[in-house]
């Protein structure tokens, strides 16, 4: 009888481990951010599959924030109080992540943000908030570092959309360039959707910059490059920092996109463990090339699930995330405190160049598959 009681007690004590742990996912599955949200969803689904193979049965609680911060916040409240999750992966956008981060701190739920760029999110000293991807300031610095390592550029011209996105990216870039001792010879914000950038580009051309740094979305990226070719703007390198320079649509325009340099969080051909396999499996399963968001989400879910499984409760999971070190599809991951950031993975950005119509990783050298083309070849 006593033995039985003991056994029963042991079972009761272990039962939280026997029951599958719940992990929350907040993502933009509908609404304007849905196309990217889909990649995040698929990345997490792939992680779920792989975790099952390792014997970790996940119980995921999915919440759709439709891209709106207020809905994201109520999703977090629900996950923290009603579903009693041990940790949360998400949300996608910067606005949602920033709103949810403070709630995660309030409820003491470990939150792992896979792919939101706004710097501020991990700069508020929040102990329960972790971020996988590199924040926005890394885009500018890694591009300029890349150009400096390839040649000796002394002058730089900025051409960017006069929106929050364009001006903030350019602002960090300008501060970085000033530290590097480069001279800004042209600073041209433009209103989105203008039909004619030729005069602006002709002006930039007359300053003869070594580097041209552009921030724009898809359509403008193509127009700007077309018209750069028209007016014969010929720097040592075109650096595309904005979303528009890293899309398949842009790469397809081979006459004007060839040899343009851009940077990203992740590429399918990088030699991080499992990256190539991840790309192949993702493509086979979902019929689409994964974006970096998918890889970030995949790695985030793997890390969160494995850590939570070992740790057990929220506080221990937080401590384990803070102390841990991983190496996977996103390269080495460690959540560190540096330069005012808290629990920020100091992620290595990859610099890519369009070579023969494909994005190829060219820098840093140890992850590269191709050698960079520098300086930019003469327009044909």
């Amino acid at each position, binding site marked *: 009888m006593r033995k039985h009681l003991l056994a029963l007690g042991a079972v009761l004590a272990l039962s939280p481990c026997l029951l599958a742990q719940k992990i929350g996912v907040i993502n933009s599955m509908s609404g304007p951010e849905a196309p990217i949200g889909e990649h995040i969803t698929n990345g997490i689904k792939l992680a779920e599959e792989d975790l099952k193979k390792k014997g970790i049965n996940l119980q995921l609680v999915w919440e759709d924030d439709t891209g709106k911060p207020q809905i994201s916040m109520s999703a977090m409240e629900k996950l923290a109080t009603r579903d009693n999750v041990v940790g949360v992966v998400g949300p996608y956008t910067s606005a949602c992540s920033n709103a949810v981060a403070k709630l995660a701190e309030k409820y003491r739920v470990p939150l792992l943000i896979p792919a939101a760029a706004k710097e501020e999110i991990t700069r508020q000293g929040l102990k329960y908030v972790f971020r996988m991807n590199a924040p926005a300031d890394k885009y500018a610095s890694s591009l300029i570092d890349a150009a400096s390592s390839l040649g000796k550029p002394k002058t730089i011209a900025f051409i960017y959309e*006069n929106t929050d996105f364009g001006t903030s990216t350019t602002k960090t870039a300008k501060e970085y360039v000033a530290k590097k001792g480069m001279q800004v010879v042209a600073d041209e914000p433009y209103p989105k*959707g*203008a039909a*004619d950038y030729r*005069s*602006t580009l002709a002006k930039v051309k*007359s300053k003869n910059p070594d580097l041209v740094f552009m921030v724009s979305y898809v*359509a403008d990226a193509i127009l700007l490059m077309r018209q750069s*070719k028209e007016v*014969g703007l010929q720097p040592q390198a075109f650096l595309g920092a904005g979303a528009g320079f890293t899309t398949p649509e842009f790469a397809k325009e081979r006459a004007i996109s060839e040899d343009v340099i851009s940077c990203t969080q992740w590429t399918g051909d990088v030699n991080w463990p499992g990256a190539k396999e991840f790309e192949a499996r993702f493509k086979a399963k979902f019929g689409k090339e994964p974006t970096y968001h998918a890889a970030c989400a995949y790695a985030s879910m793997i890390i969160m699930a494995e850590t939570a499984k070992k740790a057990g409760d929220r506080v221990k999971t937080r401590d384990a995330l803070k102390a841990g070190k991983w190496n996977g599809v996103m390269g080495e991951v460690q959540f560190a405190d540096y330069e005012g950031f808290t629990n920020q993975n100091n992620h290595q950005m990859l610099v890519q160049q369009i070579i023969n119509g494909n994005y190829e990783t060219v820098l840093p050298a140890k992850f590269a598959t191709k050698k960079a083309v520098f300086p930019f070849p003469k327009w044909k």
Partner: protein
Amino acid sequence: MAVFLQSLISGVLIGGVYALIGIGLTLIFGVMRVVNFAHGDIMMVGMYLTYLLFTLMGIDPFVSVLISFPLMFLFGGFLQKVFINRVLNAVAQNQILLTIGLGLIMSNTVMLIFTSDYKILTTSYSSSTIQVGGGVSVSVPLLVSFLITAAITAALGWFLLKTDTGQAIRATAQDRDAAQLMGINVSRMSVIAFGLGAALAGTAGALISPTYYIFPQVGSTFTLKAFVITVLGGMGSVVGATLGGILIGVTESMSAVYISSGWKDVVVFVLFLLVLLFKPSGLMGKSRT
């Protein structure tokens, strides 16, 4: 100097396309006294028509003008007969509401069909140029569209000045009642004028699509531009709209170079206000009492 010439040339060339949009609007206003706020959206329909002809049938955007011009003419005529005609004698607010509403319906219908993704037409000559020397280059597609614009404007001028129908349209524009008393079928002239206006806007859309991009909301930018051009040149004046278009094109590109690209719209509107201040009827307009 090269920068000056470069921006002057691209300003004039892009101004030519602006002029075509403005002429369409001014023609409609002249004949019917209706400000067509759906003008940019009609242009957008022309752009998608060009896009469809190019992607589905492989017809070159410049050649497709031959197809889109008559189609857009019919579309404009249909709009006039079914909708605009009913508000000709209504108060101005109602006319504005109707045309804005028509524009919204067009842009949202197109969005349902094509989604709000940006479309880019890539032709073999999309980024080809001619070097004119001194480091100045001219965009081939822009030059071709300017030449087509010039030809269409010349043909339109001839049509309005020399043909009977053209004279009837001008008579209607001068005085609707008097024209009717002289035996001119003014309601038919209205249909023709709106059709022509829509065809010109659609053509401008076709001409600009090899060098620009296409999305359902593209119209509003051009409606505003067309409005400024028309008022600047003088409401109802074809010559004024041509001048106004080129003036706006050159002002935009000059101010982008010598002030800042971010300020070019401000410069355009300051110029616009100045013209209104000193010559309220516009550059070529005759004040009407």
